[in-house]
Protein backbone atom coordinates (compact mmCIF):
# COMPACT_ATOMS: atom_id res chain seq x y z
CA UNK A 1 0.00 0.00 0.00
CA UNK A 2 1.35 3.38 -1.01
CA UNK A 3 2.23 5.63 1.91
CA UNK A 4 0.39 8.92 2.24
CA UNK A 5 3.72 10.73 2.19
CA UNK A 6 4.88 9.10 -1.04
CA UNK A 7 3.57 12.04 -3.08
CA UNK A 8 5.33 14.64 -0.93
CA UNK A 9 8.54 15.82 -2.56
CA UNK A 10 10.15 17.67 0.33
CA UNK A 11 9.49 17.65 4.08
CA UNK A 12 10.61 20.62 6.21
CA UNK A 13 10.42 20.93 9.98
CA UNK A 14 10.19 24.31 11.68
CA UNK A 15 11.72 24.11 15.14
CA UNK A 16 12.73 26.30 18.03
CA UNK A 17 13.96 25.69 21.51
CA UNK A 18 11.99 28.66 22.70
CA UNK A 19 8.29 29.55 22.82
CA UNK A 20 6.88 32.73 21.36
CA UNK A 21 9.60 33.30 18.75
CA UNK A 22 7.22 33.00 15.81
CA UNK A 23 7.57 29.44 14.53
CA UNK A 24 3.96 29.24 13.39
CA UNK A 25 4.23 32.68 11.80
CA UNK A 26 7.33 31.65 9.88
CA UNK A 27 5.72 28.31 8.89
CA UNK A 28 2.67 30.17 7.60
CA UNK A 29 4.64 32.82 5.72
CA UNK A 30 6.95 30.21 4.24
CA UNK A 31 3.91 28.30 2.95
CA UNK A 32 2.48 31.45 1.40
CA UNK A 33 5.79 32.36 -0.20
CA UNK A 34 6.24 28.87 -1.65
CA UNK A 35 2.69 29.01 -2.96
CA UNK A 36 3.51 32.24 -4.73
CA UNK A 37 6.44 30.47 -6.32
CA UNK A 38 3.89 28.06 -7.81
CA UNK A 39 4.35 25.21 -5.34
CA UNK A 40 1.74 22.99 -3.68
CA UNK A 41 2.23 23.11 0.07
CA UNK A 42 0.89 21.25 3.06
CA UNK A 43 1.30 22.24 6.72
CA UNK A 44 1.21 19.63 9.46
CA UNK A 45 0.69 21.32 12.82
CA UNK A 46 1.98 19.06 15.59
CA UNK A 47 1.61 21.65 18.35
CA UNK A 48 -1.14 19.71 20.10
CA UNK A 49 -1.53 22.03 23.12
CA UNK A 50 -1.39 25.30 21.21
CA UNK A 51 -2.49 24.71 17.59
CA UNK A 52 -2.30 28.10 15.89
CA UNK A 53 -2.05 27.19 12.20
CA UNK A 54 -5.79 26.94 11.36
CA UNK A 55 -6.47 30.46 12.54
CA UNK A 56 -3.57 31.90 10.57
CA UNK A 57 -5.32 30.78 7.41
CA UNK A 58 -8.78 31.78 8.58
CA UNK A 59 -10.05 28.19 8.56
CA UNK A 60 -10.33 27.59 12.28
CA UNK A 61 -14.00 26.60 11.98
CA UNK A 62 -13.36 23.87 9.42
CA UNK A 63 -13.87 20.19 10.13
CA UNK A 64 -11.75 17.27 9.10
CA UNK A 65 -13.28 14.49 7.05
CA UNK A 66 -12.21 10.93 6.58
CA UNK A 67 -12.03 9.21 3.24
CA UNK A 68 -11.27 5.58 2.42
CA UNK A 69 -7.55 6.07 2.52
CA UNK A 70 -7.33 8.34 5.55
CA UNK A 71 -7.94 11.86 6.77
CA UNK A 72 -8.57 14.60 4.24
CA UNK A 73 -6.55 17.73 4.97
CA UNK A 74 -8.29 21.09 5.05
CA UNK A 75 -7.71 23.22 1.95
CA UNK A 76 -7.43 26.94 2.55
CA UNK A 77 -8.56 28.04 -0.89
CA UNK A 78 -10.27 26.91 -4.06
CA UNK A 79 -6.95 26.37 -5.82
CA UNK A 80 -6.13 23.67 -3.25
CA UNK A 81 -2.58 24.96 -3.28
CA UNK A 82 -2.28 24.94 0.52
CA UNK A 83 -3.64 22.19 2.75
CA UNK A 84 -3.51 21.85 6.53
CA UNK A 85 -3.81 19.30 9.28
CA UNK A 86 -4.01 20.32 12.92
CA UNK A 87 -5.57 19.12 16.14
CA UNK A 88 -7.32 22.50 16.04
CA UNK A 89 -9.77 20.99 13.54
CA UNK A 90 -10.59 18.09 15.84
CA UNK A 91 -11.59 20.13 18.88
CA UNK A 92 -15.28 20.49 19.65
CA UNK A 93 -14.80 23.99 20.96
CA UNK A 94 -11.83 26.24 20.13
CA UNK A 95 -11.11 26.86 23.83
CA UNK A 96 -10.98 23.15 24.68
CA UNK A 97 -7.64 22.37 26.28
CA UNK A 98 -5.76 19.26 25.13
CA UNK A 99 -4.46 18.10 28.47
CA UNK A 100 -2.55 15.01 27.38
CA UNK A 101 0.58 13.38 28.63
CA UNK A 102 3.27 12.23 26.25
CA UNK A 103 1.98 8.80 25.18
CA UNK A 104 -1.35 10.15 23.97
CA UNK A 105 0.37 12.96 22.10
CA UNK A 106 2.75 10.47 20.50
CA UNK A 107 -0.15 8.34 19.28
CA UNK A 108 -1.86 11.26 17.55
CA UNK A 109 1.37 12.43 15.97
CA UNK A 110 1.92 8.98 14.50
CA UNK A 111 -1.57 9.16 13.03
CA UNK A 112 -1.02 12.66 11.69
CA UNK A 113 2.18 11.59 10.00
CA UNK A 114 0.82 8.32 8.64
CA UNK A 115 -2.88 8.79 7.98
CA UNK A 116 -3.38 12.16 6.29
CA UNK A 117 -4.12 11.81 2.56
CA UNK A 118 -1.92 14.70 1.40
CA UNK A 119 -1.83 13.67 -2.23
CA UNK A 120 0.93 15.26 -4.30
CA UNK A 121 2.75 18.09 -2.56
CA UNK A 122 5.94 19.95 -3.38
CA UNK A 123 6.52 20.79 0.29
CA UNK A 124 5.16 19.55 3.58
CA UNK A 125 5.98 21.99 6.37
CA UNK A 126 5.80 20.54 9.88
CA UNK A 127 5.16 23.20 12.52
CA UNK A 128 6.20 22.15 16.03
CA UNK A 129 5.73 23.38 19.60
CA UNK A 130 8.81 24.71 21.42
CA UNK A 131 11.11 22.17 23.06
CA UNK A 132 12.90 18.87 22.58
CA UNK A 133 10.40 16.41 23.98
CA UNK A 134 7.66 13.94 23.03
CA UNK A 135 6.29 15.80 20.01
CA UNK A 136 9.74 16.35 18.55
CA UNK A 137 11.07 12.86 19.18
CA UNK A 138 7.91 11.23 17.81
CA UNK A 139 7.69 13.49 14.77
CA UNK A 140 11.30 12.95 13.76
CA UNK A 141 11.01 9.20 14.30
CA UNK A 142 7.81 8.97 12.28
CA UNK A 143 9.24 11.09 9.45
CA UNK A 144 12.63 9.39 9.29
CA UNK A 145 11.67 6.83 6.59
CA UNK A 146 10.62 9.71 4.34
CA UNK A 147 13.98 11.47 4.53
CA UNK A 148 13.05 15.05 5.44
CA UNK A 149 14.85 17.84 3.62
CA UNK A 150 15.76 19.28 7.00
CA UNK A 151 14.87 21.73 9.73
CA UNK A 152 14.63 25.49 9.95
CA UNK A 153 15.31 26.86 13.42
CA UNK A 154 13.62 30.07 14.49
CA UNK A 155 14.96 32.34 17.19
CA UNK A 156 14.54 35.92 18.29
CA UNK A 157 17.76 37.93 18.48
CA UNK A 158 18.34 37.97 22.21
CA UNK A 159 20.62 35.67 24.14
CA UNK A 160 17.86 34.12 26.23
CA UNK A 161 16.19 32.82 23.09
CA UNK A 162 19.43 31.81 21.40
CA UNK A 163 20.34 29.90 24.55
CA UNK A 164 17.42 27.56 24.03
CA UNK A 165 17.87 27.31 20.28
CA UNK A 166 21.43 26.06 20.82
CA UNK A 167 19.91 23.09 22.56
CA UNK A 168 17.54 22.58 19.64
CA UNK A 169 20.59 22.42 17.36
CA UNK A 170 21.94 19.64 19.54
CA UNK A 171 18.59 17.87 19.20
CA UNK A 172 18.97 18.04 15.41
CA UNK A 173 22.51 16.68 15.61
CA UNK A 174 21.52 13.82 17.89
CA UNK A 175 18.49 12.87 15.79
CA UNK A 176 20.49 13.27 12.57
CA UNK A 177 18.14 15.94 11.26
CA UNK A 178 19.83 18.24 8.76
CA UNK A 179 19.70 21.93 9.69
CA UNK A 180 18.76 24.02 6.66
CA UNK A 181 19.43 27.20 8.59
CA UNK A 182 18.50 29.68 11.27
CA UNK A 183 15.96 32.49 10.99
CA UNK A 184 16.31 35.49 13.29
CA UNK A 185 12.72 36.62 13.80
CA UNK A 186 11.41 39.84 15.40
CA UNK A 187 14.73 41.38 14.39
CA UNK A 188 14.18 45.11 14.71
CA UNK A 189 11.10 47.29 14.58
CA UNK A 190 10.74 50.21 12.18
CA UNK A 191 8.44 52.85 13.66
CA UNK A 192 5.65 53.49 11.13
CA UNK A 193 5.52 57.12 12.24
CA UNK A 194 9.16 58.20 12.03
CA UNK A 195 10.99 55.19 10.50
CA UNK A 196 13.38 54.92 13.44
CA UNK A 197 14.50 51.33 13.88
CA UNK A 198 14.56 49.98 17.43
CA UNK A 199 15.98 46.58 18.32
CA UNK A 200 13.28 45.66 20.79
CA UNK A 201 14.51 42.11 21.24
CA UNK A 202 18.15 43.00 20.65
CA UNK A 203 19.92 42.09 17.37
CA UNK A 204 22.31 39.64 15.88
CA UNK A 205 21.97 36.65 18.17
CA UNK A 206 20.57 34.41 15.44
CA UNK A 207 23.30 35.28 12.98
CA UNK A 208 25.99 34.76 15.61
CA UNK A 209 24.55 31.40 16.53
CA UNK A 210 24.53 30.30 12.90
CA UNK A 211 28.18 31.28 12.57
CA UNK A 212 29.13 29.59 15.84
CA UNK A 213 27.28 26.40 14.94
CA UNK A 214 28.39 26.32 11.32
CA UNK A 215 24.89 26.33 9.87
CA UNK A 216 23.44 28.64 7.20
CA UNK A 217 21.91 31.92 8.31
CA UNK A 218 18.69 32.34 6.37
CA UNK A 219 18.02 35.96 7.35
CA UNK A 220 16.50 38.48 9.74
CA UNK A 221 12.76 39.05 9.70
CA UNK A 222 11.78 42.39 11.25
CA UNK A 223 8.77 42.98 13.49
CA UNK A 224 5.92 44.19 11.33
CA UNK A 225 2.51 44.91 12.83
CA UNK A 226 1.00 44.54 9.36
CA UNK A 227 2.25 40.96 9.34
CA UNK A 228 0.74 40.31 12.77
CA UNK A 229 -2.51 41.86 11.65
CA UNK A 230 -2.70 39.72 8.51
CA UNK A 231 -2.10 36.56 10.48
CA UNK A 232 -4.77 37.52 12.97
CA UNK A 233 -7.25 37.94 10.18
CA UNK A 234 -6.16 34.88 8.22
CA UNK A 235 -5.10 36.95 5.22
CA UNK A 236 -2.33 36.43 2.70
CA UNK A 237 0.40 38.76 3.88
CA UNK A 238 2.70 37.94 0.99
CA UNK A 239 0.00 38.93 -1.48
CA UNK A 240 -1.21 42.02 0.35
CA UNK A 241 1.99 43.54 1.64
CA UNK A 242 4.79 43.06 -0.85
CA UNK A 243 6.01 46.52 0.15
CA UNK A 244 6.31 45.69 3.83
CA UNK A 245 9.67 45.49 5.55
CA UNK A 246 9.19 41.81 6.34
CA UNK A 247 8.44 40.77 2.76
CA UNK A 248 11.98 40.78 1.29
CA UNK A 249 13.27 38.75 4.22
CA UNK A 250 10.51 36.15 3.93
CA UNK A 251 10.86 35.92 0.16
CA UNK A 252 14.61 35.44 0.54
CA UNK A 253 14.14 32.64 3.05
CA UNK A 254 11.70 30.90 0.71
CA UNK A 255 14.14 31.26 -2.17
CA UNK A 256 16.93 29.63 -0.19
CA UNK A 257 14.60 26.73 0.64
CA UNK A 258 13.70 26.35 -3.02
CA UNK A 259 17.37 26.43 -4.01
CA UNK A 260 18.24 23.87 -1.37
CA UNK A 261 15.38 21.63 -2.45
CA UNK A 262 16.27 21.71 -6.14
CA UNK A 263 19.92 21.04 -5.34
CA UNK A 264 18.88 17.99 -3.40
CA UNK A 265 16.56 16.80 -6.16
CA UNK A 266 19.39 16.98 -8.68
Amino acid sequence: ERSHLAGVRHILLVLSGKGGVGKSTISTELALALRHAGKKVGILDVDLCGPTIPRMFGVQDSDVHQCDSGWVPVFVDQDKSISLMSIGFLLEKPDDAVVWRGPKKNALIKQFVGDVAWGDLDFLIVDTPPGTSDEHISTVEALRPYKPLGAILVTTPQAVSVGDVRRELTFCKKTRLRVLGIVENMSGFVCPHCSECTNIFSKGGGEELAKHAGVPFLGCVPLDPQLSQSLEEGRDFIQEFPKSSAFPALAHIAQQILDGASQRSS
Partner: protein
Amino acid sequence: QVALLDIDICGPSIPKMMGLEGEQVHQSGSGWSPVYVEENLGVMSVGFLLSSPDDAVIWRGPKKNGLIKQFLRDVDWGEIDYLIVDTPPGTSDEHLSIVQYLGAAHVDGAVIITTPQEVSLQDVRKEINFCHKVKLPVIGVVENMSGFVCPKCKNESQIFPPTTGGAEKMCQNLNVSLLGKVPLDPQIGKSCDKGQSFLSEAPESPATLSYRSIIQRIQEYCDQHHFQEEKII
Protein backbone atom coordinates in the same frame (compact mmCIF):
# COMPACT_ATOMS: atom_id res chain seq x y z
CA GLN B 1 12.11 34.90 51.25
CA VAL B 2 11.51 33.81 47.65
CA ALA B 3 12.12 30.57 45.80
CA LEU B 4 12.02 30.36 41.99
CA LEU B 5 11.59 26.89 40.53
CA ASP B 6 12.12 26.57 36.78
CA ILE B 7 10.32 23.51 35.43
CA ASP B 8 10.88 24.32 31.77
CA ILE B 9 13.05 21.25 31.36
CA CYS B 10 13.75 21.62 27.64
CA GLY B 11 14.24 25.38 27.64
CA PRO B 12 15.55 26.47 31.05
CA SER B 13 16.00 30.23 30.71
CA ILE B 14 15.93 31.24 34.37
CA PRO B 15 19.64 30.73 35.16
CA LYS B 16 20.67 33.12 32.41
CA MET B 17 18.06 35.71 33.33
CA MET B 18 19.21 35.64 36.94
CA GLY B 19 22.90 35.97 36.06
CA LEU B 20 23.54 32.44 37.31
CA GLU B 21 24.78 30.76 34.13
CA GLY B 22 27.48 28.22 34.85
CA GLU B 23 26.44 27.68 38.45
CA GLN B 24 26.13 24.12 39.67
CA VAL B 25 23.85 22.52 42.22
CA HIS B 26 25.42 21.31 45.46
CA GLN B 27 24.12 18.42 47.47
CA SER B 28 24.21 18.27 51.22
CA GLY B 29 22.76 16.03 53.91
CA SER B 30 19.52 17.96 53.81
CA GLY B 31 19.11 17.76 50.04
CA TRP B 32 19.90 19.88 47.00
CA SER B 33 20.88 23.44 47.69
CA PRO B 34 19.20 26.07 45.57
CA VAL B 35 21.47 28.58 43.86
CA TYR B 36 21.11 31.96 45.51
CA VAL B 37 20.90 35.22 43.59
CA GLU B 38 20.59 37.08 46.85
CA GLU B 39 20.18 35.90 50.39
CA ASN B 40 16.45 35.91 50.03
CA LEU B 41 16.13 34.67 46.46
CA GLY B 42 16.99 31.05 45.68
CA VAL B 43 16.67 29.38 42.29
CA MET B 44 16.48 25.82 40.99
CA SER B 45 16.55 24.82 37.33
CA VAL B 46 17.63 21.89 35.16
CA GLY B 47 19.97 24.47 33.64
CA PHE B 48 22.23 24.05 36.68
CA LEU B 49 22.50 20.33 36.02
CA LEU B 50 23.73 20.69 32.43
CA SER B 51 27.44 20.97 31.81
CA SER B 52 27.30 22.87 28.51
CA PRO B 53 25.01 25.54 27.03
CA ASP B 54 24.63 23.25 24.04
CA ASP B 55 23.37 20.27 26.05
CA ALA B 56 19.85 19.34 25.02
CA VAL B 57 17.41 17.64 27.35
CA ILE B 58 15.71 15.25 24.94
CA TRP B 59 13.34 13.54 27.32
CA ARG B 60 9.87 12.17 26.99
CA GLY B 61 7.20 12.99 29.55
CA PRO B 62 7.90 10.38 32.25
CA LYS B 63 11.52 11.41 32.66
CA LYS B 64 10.57 15.08 32.87
CA ASN B 65 7.98 14.23 35.51
CA GLY B 66 10.65 12.36 37.47
CA LEU B 67 12.90 15.39 37.62
CA ILE B 68 10.06 17.68 38.64
CA LYS B 69 9.25 15.29 41.48
CA GLN B 70 12.90 15.35 42.55
CA PHE B 71 12.98 19.12 42.46
CA LEU B 72 9.97 19.28 44.74
CA ARG B 73 11.14 16.55 47.06
CA ASP B 74 14.88 17.11 47.32
CA VAL B 75 15.51 20.84 47.11
CA ASP B 76 16.15 22.29 50.54
CA TRP B 77 14.52 25.70 50.23
CA GLY B 78 14.30 26.40 53.94
CA GLU B 79 11.51 28.65 55.15
CA ILE B 80 10.06 30.60 52.26
CA ASP B 81 7.32 33.17 51.79
CA TYR B 82 6.80 32.61 48.06
CA LEU B 83 7.54 29.66 45.79
CA ILE B 84 7.22 30.77 42.17
CA VAL B 85 7.11 28.02 39.55
CA ASP B 86 7.98 28.99 35.97
CA THR B 87 6.50 26.58 33.40
CA PRO B 88 6.97 25.91 29.69
CA PRO B 89 4.12 26.71 27.29
CA GLY B 90 1.40 24.07 27.01
CA THR B 91 -0.97 21.90 28.98
CA SER B 92 0.94 18.66 29.19
CA ASP B 93 3.21 16.58 31.39
CA GLU B 94 4.97 19.40 33.25
CA HIS B 95 1.71 21.16 34.02
CA LEU B 96 -0.19 18.08 35.07
CA SER B 97 2.70 16.87 37.17
CA ILE B 98 3.37 20.09 39.04
CA VAL B 99 -0.31 20.45 39.93
CA GLN B 100 -0.50 16.81 40.96
CA TYR B 101 2.69 16.82 43.02
CA LEU B 102 1.75 20.08 44.75
CA GLY B 103 -1.69 18.66 45.48
CA ALA B 104 -1.04 18.27 49.18
CA ALA B 105 0.41 21.77 49.49
CA HIS B 106 -1.65 24.92 49.34
CA VAL B 107 -1.27 26.51 45.92
CA ASP B 108 -2.48 30.10 45.86
CA GLY B 109 -3.02 30.00 42.15
CA ALA B 110 -1.72 30.65 38.69
CA VAL B 111 -0.67 33.83 36.95
CA ILE B 112 -1.20 33.48 33.22
CA ILE B 113 0.85 35.46 30.71
CA THR B 114 -0.33 36.37 27.23
CA THR B 115 0.48 38.81 24.46
CA PRO B 116 -2.36 40.93 23.01
CA GLN B 117 -3.04 39.13 19.76
CA GLU B 118 -5.70 36.52 19.15
CA VAL B 119 -3.29 33.72 18.24
CA SER B 120 -1.88 34.06 21.76
CA LEU B 121 -5.24 34.52 23.49
CA GLN B 122 -6.51 31.43 21.72
CA ASP B 123 -3.93 29.32 23.51
CA VAL B 124 -4.34 31.18 26.79
CA ARG B 125 -8.05 30.39 26.89
CA LYS B 126 -7.02 26.74 26.76
CA GLU B 127 -4.59 27.33 29.61
CA ILE B 128 -7.36 28.93 31.67
CA ASN B 129 -9.53 25.91 30.90
CA PHE B 130 -6.72 23.67 32.04
CA CYS B 131 -6.63 25.54 35.35
CA HIS B 132 -10.37 25.06 35.79
CA LYS B 133 -10.05 21.36 34.96
CA VAL B 134 -7.37 20.75 37.57
CA LYS B 135 -8.97 23.12 40.09
CA LEU B 136 -6.07 25.55 40.07
CA PRO B 137 -7.33 29.04 40.99
CA VAL B 138 -6.49 31.74 38.45
CA ILE B 139 -5.04 34.75 40.23
CA GLY B 140 -5.19 36.67 36.99
CA VAL B 141 -3.80 37.37 33.53
CA VAL B 142 -0.89 39.59 32.53
CA GLU B 143 -0.86 41.09 29.04
CA ASN B 144 2.80 41.25 28.06
CA MET B 145 4.35 43.10 25.09
CA SER B 146 1.38 45.44 25.21
CA GLY B 147 2.33 48.34 22.99
CA PHE B 148 5.63 49.99 22.15
CA VAL B 149 6.53 53.66 22.47
CA CYS B 150 9.10 54.75 19.89
CA PRO B 151 12.05 56.26 21.75
CA LYS B 152 12.47 58.85 18.99
CA CYS B 153 9.02 60.19 18.17
CA LYS B 154 7.20 58.87 21.24
CA ASN B 155 4.31 57.53 19.18
CA GLU B 156 2.85 54.25 20.37
CA SER B 157 2.57 51.22 18.07
CA GLN B 158 0.71 48.00 18.69
CA ILE B 159 3.24 45.51 17.44
CA PHE B 160 1.03 42.58 18.38
CA PRO B 161 -2.35 44.12 17.56
CA PRO B 162 -5.22 43.18 19.90
CA THR B 163 -7.56 42.46 17.02
CA THR B 164 -10.08 40.73 19.28
CA GLY B 165 -9.86 43.12 22.23
CA GLY B 166 -6.68 41.82 23.80
CA ALA B 167 -6.43 40.31 27.26
CA GLU B 168 -8.89 42.85 28.60
CA LYS B 169 -11.79 41.53 26.54
CA MET B 170 -10.81 37.91 27.17
CA CYS B 171 -10.68 38.49 30.93
CA GLN B 172 -14.10 40.11 30.86
CA ASN B 173 -15.52 37.18 28.91
CA LEU B 174 -13.97 34.55 31.14
CA ASN B 175 -14.47 36.42 34.40
CA VAL B 176 -10.82 36.44 35.44
CA SER B 177 -8.75 39.39 36.64
CA LEU B 178 -6.54 41.37 34.33
CA LEU B 179 -3.57 42.00 36.61
CA GLY B 180 -1.97 44.49 34.27
CA LYS B 181 -0.38 45.26 30.91
CA VAL B 182 3.39 45.40 30.43
CA PRO B 183 4.62 47.49 27.49
CA LEU B 184 7.59 46.49 25.33
CA ASP B 185 10.88 47.99 26.47
CA PRO B 186 14.12 46.95 24.75
CA GLN B 187 15.84 47.20 28.11
CA ILE B 188 13.88 44.21 29.39
CA GLY B 189 15.46 41.83 26.88
CA LYS B 190 18.88 43.40 27.47
CA SER B 191 18.65 43.01 31.23
CA CYS B 192 17.52 39.40 30.90
CA ASP B 193 20.37 38.67 28.52
CA LYS B 194 22.86 40.19 30.93
CA GLY B 195 21.32 38.49 33.93
CA GLN B 196 20.54 41.79 35.63
CA SER B 197 17.42 42.98 37.36
CA PHE B 198 15.42 45.11 34.90
CA LEU B 199 13.55 46.65 37.84
CA SER B 200 16.88 47.94 39.22
CA GLU B 201 18.36 48.89 35.85
CA ALA B 202 15.34 50.86 34.64
CA PRO B 203 13.37 52.00 37.67
CA GLU B 204 11.59 54.78 35.75
CA SER B 205 10.47 52.68 32.81
CA PRO B 206 6.70 52.38 32.29
CA ALA B 207 7.30 48.64 32.16
CA THR B 208 8.79 48.73 35.66
CA LEU B 209 5.77 50.59 36.95
CA SER B 210 3.53 47.95 35.35
CA TYR B 211 5.51 45.08 36.81
CA ARG B 212 5.42 46.59 40.29
CA SER B 213 1.68 47.19 40.11
CA ILE B 214 1.09 43.61 38.95
CA ILE B 215 3.30 42.21 41.70
CA GLN B 216 1.44 44.24 44.28
CA ARG B 217 -1.88 42.88 43.07
CA ILE B 218 -0.57 39.33 43.28
CA GLN B 219 0.66 39.91 46.82
CA GLU B 220 -2.70 41.38 47.77
CA TYR B 221 -4.47 38.34 46.34
CA CYS B 222 -2.22 35.98 48.31
CA ASP B 223 -2.62 37.97 51.52
CA GLN B 224 -6.40 38.05 51.18
CA HIS B 225 -6.41 34.34 50.56
CA HIS B 226 -4.39 33.53 53.63
CA PHE B 227 -6.57 35.76 55.72
CA GLN B 228 -9.63 33.89 54.52
CA GLU B 229 -7.90 30.56 55.18
CA GLU B 230 -7.01 31.56 58.70
CA LYS B 231 -10.55 32.69 59.34
CA ILE B 232 -11.81 29.24 58.40
CA ILE B 233 -9.30 27.54 60.69
